[in-house]
Structures are given as C-alpha cells and as structure tokens.
C-alpha cells in the first residue's frame, strides 16, 4: 500500500494472483475517480497517479482524453532541462486551449539527486502560485516506487493533492472499456422502428411544450432533444428534415447564445449529412470553415477530428493521396501528441481504408492487424475490435482468402456483436458473411442469411440505408443466380426509391450502375448505355467523384466492347479511365482496367499485345498487392490467350498447375468451376471430347447446381451441347439446347443468351441440312435480338452464319453479297481483326466454289493468313494453309500444294490439335496417291495418320 498522506488516498495493489484478474476493474475504478475529479475541479487541483508501466499510463491518458471530449487534455513530458515544473507547465499552456495537464516523465529527474532537489524545492516554494498560474487540474504521473520520495521531498506541495490514485499495469486481456462517453443524447441503436417513432413523437411533444421558454437550462435540454430528433429523422430517412433541424433550429440558437463550439459541432454534423447525400463540395466547404474556429478555440483535438472528416470526404471523392497526406501529416501527429489512442486507431483505420481502395491490401492489412487491432484490444474496446476484425475479413476476402475471412466474421466478430446485443452490427456482419458465401458460390446460404437474418433486423431498426444496401446484395445474388428480372425489380423498386428518399444521389447512381450491369448481361446494351451516360455518369461528374466516374466509364467501355465498338472502348479505357486511377494512385483499379484493355486486344486478335499487358503490367501488380484471387484470374486469362494462339499445352498447364489450385485453396468454388470450364474447352480444342465432356458434366455442372446458379448451369449445358455437336450427336445436342437451355434463358429474361442458344440450334439444323429452318431462326429469331441489343458485332457474326446457309443452299451470290456488304465492313469498322479474317475466309471459300481461284488465293494469302500470323493464331493459320493447298490442288499445282501442306505441319503441331495434323497428313497422302506414289502415301496413312485417329474420339472423325 502506498503512503496515504493527509488526504484521501486510493490504492490498489500490490496485486496477488487471485485478485490480478480484477486489475482492470480496479484501474477502471481509479480511472473513473480521476475523471470525476478532473470534471468537478473548478480551477487548479492536484492529483497524483502512480502507474509503473509507461504504456499503460499513456493508454490511460488517451482514454481520459477520449472520455472527456469537451476538454482538451494536455500531456506534458518533463524535459531534462525543466527544473521549474510550474514554469514549464505554464509555458505549455500559453496560447493553448484550456484543459487539464498530465505531467509525465518526472521519474527521469529523480535519477539526478541535485536536480531532484531543485525540482522539489521549486514545487514547495512556488506552491501558492499554482492555482493562479494554472487554473486547471494537474495530474502528476509517476512510478509507484517514487511516490514516497516525491511526497516527502515536497510535502507542502503534495499535501494539496485531492487524491492519490494507483493504477496497476494492464495487459490487453485484462482491459475493458473504462469510460463510456458521458451521457449525450442520441438514438439508442437498439431501438426498433416502432420505438423510434414513439421517441420522435415524445421529443416533438417535449419541444413543443418548451418552445416558449427562454430559461437557459430548458433551452439546453431543448437543444439536446432537437439534436436527438435530427439523428432519429436521419436514421429514419427523413434527411431533409434532419438538415432543416440542424440549420434552422439548432444553428440560429447557438449563434444567438454565442456558443461558438456548439455551432461548429452542428456545422460538422450538417457536413456529415451533406457528405452522406453525396454533396461533397459543400460538405468540404463547411468542414474547412470549421478549422479556423477550432484553431481559435485552441481545440486541437476537435481540429484533428475535422481534418479527419475532410480526409474522409476526399477519400469519397477519390482524392486518396490528398486524404492520406492529411491523415498522416496532420491528424495522426496531433492525436499522438494528445495521447488519444482511440481516435488515433480510428484515423489509422481510415488510412487502411485508403490502402484498400488503392488496392494495397498487404499494407492495409498490416495497419489493421499490427496497429489498430492491438490498440482496441488494449483499450478493451470490444465493439471497435470486432468492427476492425470485420474490416480485416473484408481485406482477406478481397485477397480471395474467403475461408479465413469467413472464419473471422463467424468466430470472432459475430459472437462479439451478439454478446454486446449490437443487433445492427450483427446484421451488417451477416451482410459481409453473405458476401463471402456469395463469392464462394454458396448463393442459397447467402440469400438465406440476408433475407432471414439481416434484412428483418434492419427493417425492424428502420435503418433504411443499410436495408437498401442489403437489398442491393440480395439483388446481386439473384443476378448471379441468373434471376435477372427479380434482381432488376429489387434494384428499381426497393433499393432506388430508398436512396431517392434519403437524397443519396451517390448510392442512387451506384444502384443505377448495377441496373445497367443487368441490362448488359441481358444484352440490352442500348438501355444499359443510356442509364450509364444519362444518369450515373453525370451524377458522379457533379459530385466530383473521380473514381466512381472512372468506374462508370469503365462500364460504358464494357458495353461498347460488347457492342463490338472496340476502338471507342479502348479510347475510353486509355484516355478516361486509366489516367484517373493513375492520378488517384489506385494501382488495383489500374491493373483491372489494363486487364480489360487486354481483353479488347484479345477480341481484336492482337494476342501478343494482350499477353504483354497481362504478363508485364497486370500480373505483377496483383502479385505485389497480394491479391491472390485476381492473380489467379489473370493467369486464367493468360491461359485463354495461349489457347487462342493454339498453345494448348501451355494453357492447360497454367490452368491445372496455377489457377485451379489457387481457387481450391481459396474455397472459391465458382471461380474453380469457371477454370474447369476453360480446361474443358482446351480438351475440346485438342479434340479430346470425352475428357471435355467428363469435366463439364462431373466437375463444372455440379458446382453450379450446388450454387443454384440457374444461368451458369444453362450456359454449362449449352457448352455440353456444343461437345455433343462436335461428336456428331446432333439429336442429343438439340435436345439440350431446345428443351433445357432455351427455356431457362427465356425464363431468366436473358435475351442475349437465348439468341446465342438459338444460333447453336441453327448450327445443328444446318449440319443436319435443315437449311430453311436454320435460316428462319437466324433471320427471324437471332438477328433481331442483336439488332435490338445494338450488338453490331454479334449481328455481323450472325450475318456470316446466314451467308453460310445461303452458300450451303448454293445461293453463292447472296452469300457473297451478305459477307462483302454487311459483315466485312462491320468487322473492319470495329477493328475486329479475327472476325474480319474469318469473314474473308468465307468469301474465299465461296470464290473457290465459284472457281475464282486467283481472287480466292489472293484473299487467303494477302488478307486472311497475315492476320492469323499476326494474331499468333496457329490453329486458324493451319486451317487457312490447308485451304490454300486445296486451291493449289484445284488448280492442279500439286507441288505447290505439297509445299504448303508440309509447311503447315509444324504449325498444326504447335496448335496442339491432332486433328489438324491428321487432316494435313491426309491431304498429303491424297496428293501422293493421285500421283501414284502409293508407298509413301501408305506410310503416311499408317504411321502418321492412323495413330492420331486412334487417339481421337471415333465419332469426331
């Protein structure tokens, strides 16, 4: 026990093991006693606190500052040169805002006896001056062992102390919240909608009854009620009324009372509302106006808070670098100086958020796990800790570590919120869990959590905004399940009206973006484009939200890309989207946009350039960011390029060795299914149809079935039908397409997929020779859809197919006219090199059939082949070479034909598809046969061609 002196002394410790567990509790008691003492002091008062751990001490000072928001708590560290404590403390307070002073570091002086003597006699001699010079509470913090030396060395001075408080050292486990903020009226977060309504009525009645009173105390109560009412209105979605209360009821009164601080605080709240409504410029203007006010008041803490809010607005505007600068250069150092650990952790959370937005996930994760989480743990801030855990889970989710993210949310955050009775936070955590389940493809479970748990809670709480967000999530899941109509309905009828009511133009524009996404999936490109350009884009432009503007432009580019307008899409991405991300320092979005640019290059057939971007730009960024999932997706896309270049083995290796294991590890079933679909495609390209079919049926399809993803299930079925088609099982293919896929897409309102399926059906009918019906489908069903969707590229492709039918029916002129007048110019205009080459190949086919060998040869060698060569598309190159050889044969130029065919052999090999080589070998053997070189022909047929045939599925040959 410490020496009690003449005044009341409060001691704890030394602690025995049995009572150690209550150390935090005792510290809490001492803490509250100290806070009360400070709060009740009407001028100078002296407190002595002993605490052996500087870390605990600083934590306590931080807590103290945080729990008394109305006071500026000064922390003063005695320097080696400060022998006169009074002068030093007075100096600190000169020009600073009034408030209690925490004196720390006196133990350093106690090492030097002579200096200690000077300090103590100074304290004793100048005792009488303290109340005049320092009219605030002064708290001396020192290690317990030094208490006796100090009180015996300066008995007169320390005899004045109001209290001696002893704080045991706290470990993080022992901590608990010491001090909740003083009772300030606000909406009880646990209130139901009904209770909120009743409370609002009660407050309105109280305000009405007190309206005429100018009694100061009544006025203050009324201001408290107005404030609570404004919060209630805000929560209940009546933003205009909340704003009106703040502007017309609160602000003028504070102005009249000359209450500068209260006025500034109210202005800050107005800025909050404006920020939530997306009126960022105005919010920023108001916030910046408050800075000099707090400076004048000398309130550094509140100034730092306002700076933090400014940073937050800048973050919303996408000005990440500026926000980061303010937080690290202005806010953090101030809060550190004030010893306000809690606010510092909050600022660090903002910083982590910036890193997340920039895609620097590792750095964000480091801040949250190394700095923020331990702080809240130390402060015993259980709720904040759980919230931080939620944020960590977000990052892990973004990195694709879905299992770990899910574990944190379900095992750590959710039980905490449950225990604390924080039903709102629980509902929000459930929303996050649903997100992860959705990402893992567990759509049913995600949907169940949202509709059965989160939504009813938020509805009951009347939390409109979060309700709208949750409904948006539900719509997302329905969209993923392919239930596009219902998703659209929710976005339009449930989500949008709430944001409209809340006056939240930003969220409204974001929801519009999602609606456009659905139209894009449904193939209604014009409608999607209209929404984005007429509604969303102008909103973000008006809000000055660079990031959202760039993202919207990215979406517009997506649509243009889908419409086949590759040049314009490319221009948007390069000139509008990329520079913004570069300016914002958002490497992640930049990499994503670069990935999309690579997509365009792939479609245009510029495979080398696409590959370069993916390997040199995109992949290293995601690697650097620790974005495992994005990295795997990029690798999958690289595999696609290899496949397009005919490097099937390389593509397969990447998919099976890199991509698939990553998704498996991440527990991302959907992405895994997609990768398996890609692997199936490669097997199909290699002619290994059985293996392709097995993967589709045994690996891919069950995943979508388990995920209840109707749409992707139907797509997978279409792909299975394509395999049947390739195997010549036309009836099976037709059954799947007509009876299974088509009704599904019809039901889902997915026009594009429906049209594509009809195209496949037409393919089968063509193969069966039912040209008339195939033509009818193409012209009457398929073509109008693409026309309606504004998808010129797909329209041109379909025109090519129509030309095929006319050609098959012998109507060569009509076929040629369609190809040269309609399809080819479109592809040329769109810069779609591959499609152009394909159309030219078809034209060459017709010319060959008409006997116009020279022109056909010219097109093949001068137009078609160079494109494939340029694209690195070995498969198409091999096919075209065989066709050139065919022309030579038709012309009787057998030597030339043989030369071309032999040249094509290594290309066929590179294509990795045995069938190509077999076809070329067959032709060579045929020519040799015709030339009567039977031995050589036989050798080729038996040694080269037969083994291939055996390897291939019989039906495909």
């Amino acid at each position, binding site marked *: 026990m410490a020496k*009690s002196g003449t*005044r*009341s*002394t*409060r001691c704890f410790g030394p602690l025995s093991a049995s*009572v150690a567990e209550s150390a935090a509790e005792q510290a809490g*008691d001492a803490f*509250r*006693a*100290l806070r*009360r*003492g400070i709060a*009740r002091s009407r001028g100078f008062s002296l407190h002595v606190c002993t605490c052996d751990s500087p870390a605990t001490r600083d934590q306590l000072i931080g807590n103290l500052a945080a729990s008394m928001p109305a006071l500026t708590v000064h922390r003063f560290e005695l320097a080696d040169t400060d022998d006169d404590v009074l002068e030093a403390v007075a100096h600190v307070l000169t020009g600073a805002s009034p408030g209690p002073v925490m004196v720390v570091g006196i133990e350093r002086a106690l090492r030097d006896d002579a200096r200690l003597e000077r300090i103590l006699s100074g304290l004793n001699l100048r005792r009488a001056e303290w109340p005049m010079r320092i009219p605030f509470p002064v708290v001396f913090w020192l290690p317990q062992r030094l208490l006796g030396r100090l009180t015996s060395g300066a008995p007169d001075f320390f005899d004045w102390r*109001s*209290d001696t408080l002893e704080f045991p050292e706290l470990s993080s486990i022992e901590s608990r919240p010491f001090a*909740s903020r003083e*009772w300030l*009226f606000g909406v*009880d977060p*646990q*209130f139901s909608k009904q*209770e909120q309504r*009743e*409370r609002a009525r*009660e407050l309105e*009645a*109280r305000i009405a*009854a*007190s309206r*005429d*009173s100018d*009694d*100061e*105390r*009544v006025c*203050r*109560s*009324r201001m*408290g009620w107005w404030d609570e009412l404004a919060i209630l209105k805000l929560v209940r979605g009546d933003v205009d009324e909340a704003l009106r209360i703040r502007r017309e009821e609160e602000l003028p009164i504070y102005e009249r009372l000359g209450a500068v601080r209260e006025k500034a605080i109210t202005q800050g709240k107005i800025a909050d509302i404006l920020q939530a409504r997306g009126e960022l410029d105005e919010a920023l203007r108001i916030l910046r106006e408050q800075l000099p006010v707090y400076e004048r008041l000398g309130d550094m803490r509140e100034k730092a808070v306002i700076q933090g809010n400014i940073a937050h607005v800048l973050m919303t505007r996408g000005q990440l670098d500026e926000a980061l600068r303010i937080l690290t250069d202005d806010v953090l150092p101030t809060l550190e100086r004030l010893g306000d650990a809690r606010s510092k952790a909050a600022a660090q959370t903002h910083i982590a958020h910036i890193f997340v937005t920039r895609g620097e996930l590792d750095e964000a994760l480091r801040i949250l796990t190394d700095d923020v989480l331990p702080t809240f743990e130390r402060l015993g801030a259980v709720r904040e800790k759980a919230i931080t855990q939620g944020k960590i889970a977000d990052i892990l989710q973004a990195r694709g570590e879905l299992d770990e993210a899910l574990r944190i949310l379900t095992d750590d955050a959710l039980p905490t919120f449950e225990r604390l009775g924080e039903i709102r936070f629980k509902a929000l955590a459930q929303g996050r869990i649903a997100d992860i389940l959705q990402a893992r493809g567990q759509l049913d479970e995600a949907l169940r959590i949202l509709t059965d748990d989160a939504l009813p809670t938020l509805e009951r709480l009347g939390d409109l905004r979060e309700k709208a967000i949750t409904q948006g999530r539900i719509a997302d899941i329905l969209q993923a399940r392919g239930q596009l109509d219902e998703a659209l309905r929710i976005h339009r009828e449930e989500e949008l009206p709430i944001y409209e009511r809340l006056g939240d133009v930003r969220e409204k524009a974001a929801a519009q973006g999602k609606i456009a996404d659905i139209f894009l999936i449904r193939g209604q490109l014009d409608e999607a484009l209209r929404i984005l350009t007429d509604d969303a884009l102008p909103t973000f432009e008006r809000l000055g939200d660079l990031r959202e503007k760039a993202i919207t432009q990215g979406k517009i580019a997506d649509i243009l890309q889908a419409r086949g307008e590759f040049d314009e899409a490319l221009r948007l991405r390069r000139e509008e989207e990329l520079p913004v991300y570069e300016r914002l320092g958002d490497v992640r979005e930049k990499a994503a946009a670069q990935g999309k640019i690579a997509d365009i290059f792939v479609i245009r057939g510029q495979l080398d350039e696409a590959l370069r971007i993916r390997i040199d730009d995109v992949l290293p960024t995601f690697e650097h960011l620790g974005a495992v999932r994005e990295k795997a997706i990029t690798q999958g896309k690289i595999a696609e390029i290899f496949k397009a270049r005919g490097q099937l083995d390389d593509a397969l290796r990447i998919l099976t060795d890199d991509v698939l294991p990553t998704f498996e590890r991440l527990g991302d079933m959907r992405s895994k299914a997609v990768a398996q679909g890609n692997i199936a495609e490669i097997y199909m390209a290699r002619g290994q149809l059985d293996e392709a079919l097995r993967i589709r049926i045994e690996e891919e399809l069950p995943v979508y079935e388990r995920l209840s993803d109707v749409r992707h299930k139907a797509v997978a079925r279409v792909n299975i039908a394509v395999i049947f088609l390739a195997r010549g099982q036309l009836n099976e293919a037709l059954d799947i397409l007509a009876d299974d896929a088509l009704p599904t897409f019809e039901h889902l309102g997915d026009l594009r997929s429906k049209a594509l399926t009809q195209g496949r059906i037409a393919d089968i009918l063509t193969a069966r020779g039912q040209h008339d019906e195939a033509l009818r489908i193409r012209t009457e069903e398929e073509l109008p859809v693409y026309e309606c969707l504004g998808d010129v590229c797909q329209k041109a492709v379909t025109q090519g197919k129509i030309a095929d039918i006319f050609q098959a029916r012998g109507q060569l002129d009509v076929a040629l006219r369609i190809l040269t007048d309609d399809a080819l110019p479109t592809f040329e205009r769109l810069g779609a090199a591959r499609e152009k080459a394909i159309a030219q190949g078809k034209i060459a086919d017709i010319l060959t059939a008409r006997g116009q060998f020279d022109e056909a040869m010219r097109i093949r060698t001068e137009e078609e082949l160079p494109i494939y060569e340029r694209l690195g598309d070995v498969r198409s190159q091999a096919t075209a070479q065989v066709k050139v050889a065919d022309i030579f044969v038709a012309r009787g130029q057998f030597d030339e034909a043989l030369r071309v065919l032999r040249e094509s052999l290594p290309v066929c090999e590179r294509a990795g598809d045995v069938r190509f080589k077999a076809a070329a070998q067959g032709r060579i053997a045929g020519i040799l046969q015709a030339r009567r070189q039977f031995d050589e022909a036989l050798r080729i047929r038996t040694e080269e061609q037969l083994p291939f045939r055996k390897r291939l599925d019989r039906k495909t040959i």
Partner: protein
Amino acid sequence: MSETLLIMPDINDLPAITRLYRVCEPVESLNPIDPRWVDFDDVRGDENVVELYARSLRRATPDRADFKLFTGHRGVGKTSELYRLKGMLEEKSAGGKKGFLVVFSDVSDRLDVNDLDFPDLLVFVAAQLQQQLGKLQIPGFDPATTYLRHVWDEIRKLLGSEVELKGVEVEAGFAKLAIELRNRPNSRELLRAAVEQHSTSLLDAVNDLLTSAEASARIAGHAGLVLIIDGLDKLVRRDLGNGNNTHDRLFIDRSEQLASLCVHTVYTVPISLIYSPRFGQVQQSVGEHNAPVSMIRLRPKCEEPVLTDSPGMIKMREMVSKRCAHAGTSITDAFDNLETLNYLCELSGGHPRHLMMFLQAACNELDELPITRHAAEKAVRRYGNALLREVPDAAWDALKKFEQPQRDIPKDDLHQQMLFLLFVFEYMNGKIWYEVNPVLRTLERLRC
C-alpha cells in the same frame, strides 16, 4: 419514513402515560411543521448543514448536477433535517419565484436495507420518479417515456418466465420490480443481474426522464428539480468477503453511478462511510466536502463537563417538554423531579432517538405518570445490557480510550463499526471530538 405519518393522539380518551408514550415514538421523524419539532441548530455542529446545503443547491449552476451526502448518527434527526431541507428548497424566493420541485423518497420504505445494491436503488429511483412526478401532473410531462419502456421491455425479456412480470407495463413495472427485489431474497441475484445488464440504459432512461421533468418544472416556474433519497444510511454494514462490505459495494464501488444523475441529488449515507479509507473516492465522484449532521453536544466544549444548564441539555429538555405538551401534560407532571429528566438527557448523550427510547422504556415500567428515577435507571440499564451483548469483545479495549473525549479516531474497520453501531458518538463544536455512548460508562465491562 413518510412525512404524512403524523401522530395526532386523542387526548381525551387515553391515560396521560399512554399519550406521552405515543408522542415519543423513536422511529418517527418529525417535519418542521410538527409542534414537537425542536430547532437543534445551535447545539449541533458549528454549521447548519441543512441551511448550508439549501444555499449551495440554490446557487449551483443548473448546467451541472450537484450531489450532497447527508450523514450523521442514526437517530440523530437526519430525516427531520431532510424534511427541513425539502421545505427550504420548496420555499419561494425573495422575488416570489417558485422554489424547487423536490422528489423525496425513503429507500427503507420499499427496499431491504439488509441487502441493498445499486440495481435495487436504480429500479427504486426509476419507480419513485415515475410515481411521484406522475402524481404532480406537471404540464407537458409524461412519466412513461420511450427509454424507460424500452429498458423495461429488455429487462422483462431477460427475466423471461423466471419472475412473474407478465402483463406488467412500464407505468408500474419498476415499482413492481422494486417490490420483487425486496420481497424475494431468493430471486434477488437473478433480478439484479437482469437490471445490471441494462444499468447504463436504465441510468440513461432515468436521466432522460429527469431532464424532461426538470424542463417541465422550470417551464412551470420552479427553480429546478431536486431529488432527496433518504434511508440509505440504514443500509446494514455486512462483510461480503474479499475485503468488501455492503457499504463499500454501494457507496464506493458505485459512487460514479450515484453521481451520474442529471439533477441535484441528496443521498443519506451511513456515518461510518466518511471514516472509510476509501471515502476519498466517493468525494471524487460526489465532489464537495460533506459535513455530517452532528450529535447534540451536551458538553459545550470537548474539555468542559456536562452541566444541567448547558445549551445542549436545555435543548434536550425542550424536546421532552414539547412532547409532554403535545401529550397534554407537562414536565412537572411527567417526571417525579427534574433530576430524573436530566439523568435521562445526559445518558442519551445528545442522541434524540435514544432519549425517546429511554422515555418509552421508562413508561413501560409504570402504570401511570410520573416517570420515577427508578424507572429511568431501569430503562437505561436495559439498554446497557443490550450494549453489553452487542459490543464485540475486540472493541472493549478500543472503547476505553473514548471514555474521555478524544480529538481523533483511527480510520479502520473496527472504529468505523463503533461509529456506525453508536458505541462512539461524534460531536462537533468548531472541532470534532469523539466519546463513548454514555450508557457504556455505566457498565463495569468498560473499566475492567
């Protein structure tokens, strides 16, 4: 003790001794308007605590609630003094402005003072505020607020089927809960745990109610709202193990919460509390130095003897005289001689309730007045015998020191108990002194 409990005996029907007996009820606290009431101000401390508090509360800034601890030996007249305080606070100001609206409530009426913890008190305060403020029908004030309703629903939900609270709405809920807390010691822990879990919300709800009530009171022209909580001094001091006791649990561990109400509040507390080594902590929460209501000093000063004409003795006799008058008799008729009265006054040690106790005990020895010396000595002896059994063995040695007035008293557990159990009295006349209960001086045990 309720202020409505005024005994108005029918002087005509009963014998004088019975009438005297009835007007000397020791447990009855008198209101200043009672004809038996005596102003002891001049012979208590050197300051009038009630006037001091009334002045301080009137002057306190309305922005910050002021908290007063009201203490003194049991039976010293605290409740009577609190009635006086209430009257002073309710008085109109010189300018004719209405005084404070005072809510006065006595916990010993509704709670079990043998075992009382913070949740019980909080529930009691909520119930009292709802009932008393509701009765006042202040315009614009509704005692069933959304916050109280919410907390009530939460507590009820938590208790589930354990306690029969079904169908009890918030209007009567907290009163019913307070009754349950008093009447069902077996369920007490369960009830407390439920309240404790929502104690912050309940405190907030009570403060919300108080804010609304105070605003309504001010609008109606009152100076504000003051809450007086009496009876906490009766809380039995019982060891709870771990070095804690019932007093520390409520008054020290919960001092922060006690000082969290948002209107001016006066709490009575046991006198031993101010001798607790942890009292500093209470003061940290409550703020101001709180002087106890002192005993009536029979010695004019510490070092002077007790004389029959000392002001304290005169006041004690005045007290008896007023009671006699109220009983339709007089000192001369009620006592065989003045010496007998002086004997009883001196043996009371200036403790009004003890004097009343002696008078009743003496009456019990007799069929009719006057009270004789013999009966008076017998009454004192009976109390002395009770003390002989009550005083723990360990205390006798320590008590010996206080046979003569002492300027200081050790601040330990034993001496706190001695003050609380009225073995030692505290007096004040500019300076404090302590001496044994005079009845102990009559016992052999004190001397051996």
